[in-house]
């Protein structure tokens, strides 16, 4: 095979753009690069909230389980980054296992929450809204980093890749949120904190799909040979 066997347009396009590139680092290392983001959500978010509202933070045992939840979120992000590389997509069995582990971890970790306090329905609703808004507000900037890392790859299933990143960031945010949440009621935790995670999953899926569409459009405009 020589130059003459490759269509001229393709050959010229490749030749014009050919320059050395560094291959992407492994998904695990890219997930590890998000450790600072995880630390901000795990430590910075509760400390900031405690400073702002003078709320008492959870006991040290809860911090331990939050660390476990944060580590799990890094594993899910690594799975998302792996999913974004062509030919390394996760099998449906692996995806199902990941989803089950995430749900189980979320339920079990939050089962160690402080005992519930008797509160009125009005306050319950207010705290419900507050938790969702806080988690989503703090997590959206955190979602930018994985979205950028995904955009550097070529996901075959962008919505799934984004959803995994959203799940990872959502669990990361929950790890911090549960440390300063006013309401220890299990129903509140499952609905409000779980709802925030679901919103982030949807946002992740949407953002990855949009990014892929924009990327395809940009590449189409960029690659020309004349």
């Amino acid at each position, binding site marked *: 095979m020589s130059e003459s066997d490759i269509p001229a347009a393709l050959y010229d396009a*490749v030749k014009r753009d050919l320059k050395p590139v560094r291959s992407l680092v492994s998904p695990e290392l890219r997930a590890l690069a998000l450790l600072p983001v995880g630390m901000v959500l795990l430590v910075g978010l509760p400390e900031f909230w405690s400073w702002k509202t003078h709320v008492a933070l959870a006991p040290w045992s809860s911090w331990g389980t939050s660390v476990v939840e944060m580590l799990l979120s890094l594993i899910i992000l690594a799975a998302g980054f792996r999913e974004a590389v062509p030919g390394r997509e996760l099998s449906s069995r692996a995806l199902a296992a990941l989803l089950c582990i995430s749900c189980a971890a979320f339920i079990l970790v939050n089962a160690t929450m402080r005992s519930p306090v008797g509160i009125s329905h009005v306050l319950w609703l207010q705290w419900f809204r507050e938790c969702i808004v806080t988690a989503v507000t703090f997590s959206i900037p955190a979602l930018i980093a994985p979205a950028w890392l995904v955009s550097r790859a070529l996901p075959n299933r962008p919505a799934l890749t984004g959803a995994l990143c959203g799940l990872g960031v959502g669990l990361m945010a929950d790890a911090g949120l549960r440390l300063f949440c006013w309401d220890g009621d299990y129903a509140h935790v499952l609905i409000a904190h779980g709802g925030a995670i679901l919103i982030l999953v949807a946002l992740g899926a949407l953002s990855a799909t949009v990014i892929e569409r924009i990327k395809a459009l940009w590449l189409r405009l960029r*690659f020309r040979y004349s």
Partner: protein
Amino acid sequence: MELMIAYQAGDLGAFERLYALLVGEATRYFSRAHRDRSVIHDLVQDLFLEIHRSRRTYTPPLPVKPWIFGIARNVSARNRRAFRLQPGESSEQSSDSALAVVPSDADALDIENALTALPSSTREPWLLHHVFGFSFDSIAARLGITVVAAKLRSSRATRALRLALQLTGKPSR
């Protein structure tokens, strides 16, 4: 794998060897879903272009073929999406109206017949460029394909037309 590493390092010869090694398999891969040879050819070119763009996503020492065929799935899916977004009726209309502007003498009839015989995927870029004067950028945007693909399809149509007109005894232009 060595070829891919060399390609990532900027070796054009590695790309040529990679193309030679994979073009057959890539053609067979797309042949499973498409019958039209020109569409398969376009998809193979799109695949190699996408391999070039995404070459940094390959991580040595992982096997190359799963990565390549992962990209092939992506190219295939993108083609399906572009096909869905492209309104079939309006494209037929534009082709028909383009044919209508050709003068109705004997030569024109031959050209019209040759054009009609072309698959719409190559006919349309050719008509849009040579008859309506659209730039390849506009054609690519309009048809939802890359600029390179638009040029490839148009040049393929030109070759096919030239061949068809030679067979009917008309001088090629």
